[in-house]
């Protein structure tokens, strides 16, 4: 197959999960209308959730989840050595995700809260790029399959792809969605990275910033406008800490 005289490579792809909910890998099986073609374009050789065969020969490794145990670090380092191209898939892998909220507490406390009298080995949560070099990040909780497809096309056919620079509001407006602020709610859309097509405000909940910070955020004004509408700085920061993508602003661990 050729696109603009570029031969498709049909690369060997592996998908690995770490500390997460497996929601992102499930997206691989989503979008049925193009699923067959998606699976034809790549050669999946290792994907625990959907197949039992396993191969250690792969070009592209998708990493889902954050890192929260010593054995996960070992596994990740091995994968990094084998993969030519390593992609962090989803907010857990990119930022630490929802799991990262535990870093606010002493590890002994969280261990006790979850496992009671039978504590397990655990570490503060880290994103993939805090441990190994990452070639590409696809944020989202879960990731959007449409975006995964475009990034796969970018890698295998060299179709140009660039992450959008605009915040969530831009696409939100294109859907005729009533602004959550107008309904009296706090929304992180104005400072969150767009490209998701703003499904949350359209579906009736504000944006929680699962894709992290947009390219040109104006935090000063954002805190301002939130305050004018009755949302304190603490409240905004707590919201920003939900997926871990705003640590550069909130200063959380």
């Amino acid at each position, binding site marked *: 197959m050729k696109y603009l005289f570029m031969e498709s490579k049909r690369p060997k792809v592996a998908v690995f999960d770490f500390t997460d909910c497996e929601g992102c890998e499930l997206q691989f099986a989503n979008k049925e209308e193009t699923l067959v073609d998606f699976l034809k374009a790549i050669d999946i050789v290792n994907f625990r959730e959907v197949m039992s065969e396993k191969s250690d020969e792969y070009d592209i490794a998708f990493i889902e989840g954050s890192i929260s145990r010593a054995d996960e670090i070992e596994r990740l380092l091995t994968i990094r050595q084998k993969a030519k191209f390593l992609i962090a898939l989803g907010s857990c892998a990119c930022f630490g995700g929802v799991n990262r909220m535990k870093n606010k507490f002493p590890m002994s406390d969280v261990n006790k809260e979850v496992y009671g009298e039978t504590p397990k080995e655990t570490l503060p949560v880290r994103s993939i790029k805090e441990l190994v070099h990452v070639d590409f990040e696809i944020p989202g909780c879960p990731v959007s399959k449409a975006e995964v497809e*475009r990034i796969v096309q970018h890698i295998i056919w060299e179709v140009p792809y660039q992450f959008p620079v605009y915040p969530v509001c*831009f696409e939100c*407006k294109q859907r*005729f969605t009533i602004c959550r602020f107008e309904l*009296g709610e706090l929304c992180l859309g104005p400072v969150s990275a767009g490209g998701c097509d703003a499904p949350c405000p359209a579906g009736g909940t504000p944006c929680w910033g699962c894709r992290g910070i947009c390219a040109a*955020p*104006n935090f000063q*004004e*954002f805190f301002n406008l939130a305050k004018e509408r009755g949302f304190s700085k603490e409240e905004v920061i707590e919201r920003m800490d939900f997926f871990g993508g705003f640590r550069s602003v909130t200063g959380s661990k």
Partner: protein
Amino acid sequence: MLFRIIKKEDFKTFVNLMLQTTEVIAPKFIKNNAKGKPIHQFLPISNYDEMVLDYEKCEFSAKTYFLPYKNTLSTFHMKDHDWTQEIQYRIQPRAIFGLHPCDINALVRLDKVFARDFYPNPYYISRRKNTFIVGIDHLPCDDGFCHAINANHITHGFDLFLTDLGDRYFVKINSDRAFMAISEVPIQEITDEDTKDYLAVRKQISQSYKVSVKTDDLPNLLDIEFESKVWKKWGDKCLNCGTCAMVCPTCYCYGVTERVSMDHSTGKKIAYLYSCNLLDFAMVAGGHNFRPNQETRLKYRYYHQHRGFVESYGEPMCVGCNRCGRSCLAGIDPVNVIRDLHEEEKL
């Protein structure tokens, strides 16, 4: 232009007749906002009762029905080292009811760019020609400044225009197709009493504009105030979100991108509306950005609306609806920006 009277019940029949053959878009009630104010949007309706003609303003303009946010320009089919191209201009006929004068004047502005300039745009023209426009007079909204920018009167660019006289509408009929269509239901000649009532309503409207701002010397003022502190003041607030351009009935800047299908057999060329406030609006190949600062980008949005467009087309592009100001979460609104510029000049 012809003037007639139509009774409200006959108007209802007219709408329901239209619904049998044509997609009808009209202001529709969605819900109340947190302050208890009703929110209306231009959306397809399926019967007359869904249409709200005495609405205040739709936050979203009806622009998307003429310039969709995303529009497929052409589709490519790739096969055996060859390809074919398919272009579709044809659209189903549509009617839009309830446009206010500013909205109709916004279409007249877009016509200048896409229908009457050197490079007519067939995608726009087919939508425009296939859309039956029914406008309506209304008591001025709270924050619009259409009258201050001379966009509160309509002379062309529509099919029918209504003025509510209580139990009947005073109708301006502005096209052959409008005359044919409305003749399907009973309409009456204008009596002296109708004229009297019409003039009274018009007078009430013209006395009810709430916002005043001076705009006639704006192109000149903008020339002088290019380096003004005003741009930094407002620019510092901008969230670089593009909301203003998305809701604006006249902002028409777009980019073009290509998408390939996952089976690699088809490609699409897609035009997508963009905004000059977005970070990469003036980014060029090689990564250089001609407008890296948000205050510069904000400034250029005003320059295009109130100066550049005047230079090319003899009037501002802005029709004073203040949708941009109302939707901007940072509270950047044209009336206050323009007032600030006037203040600067006095110093």
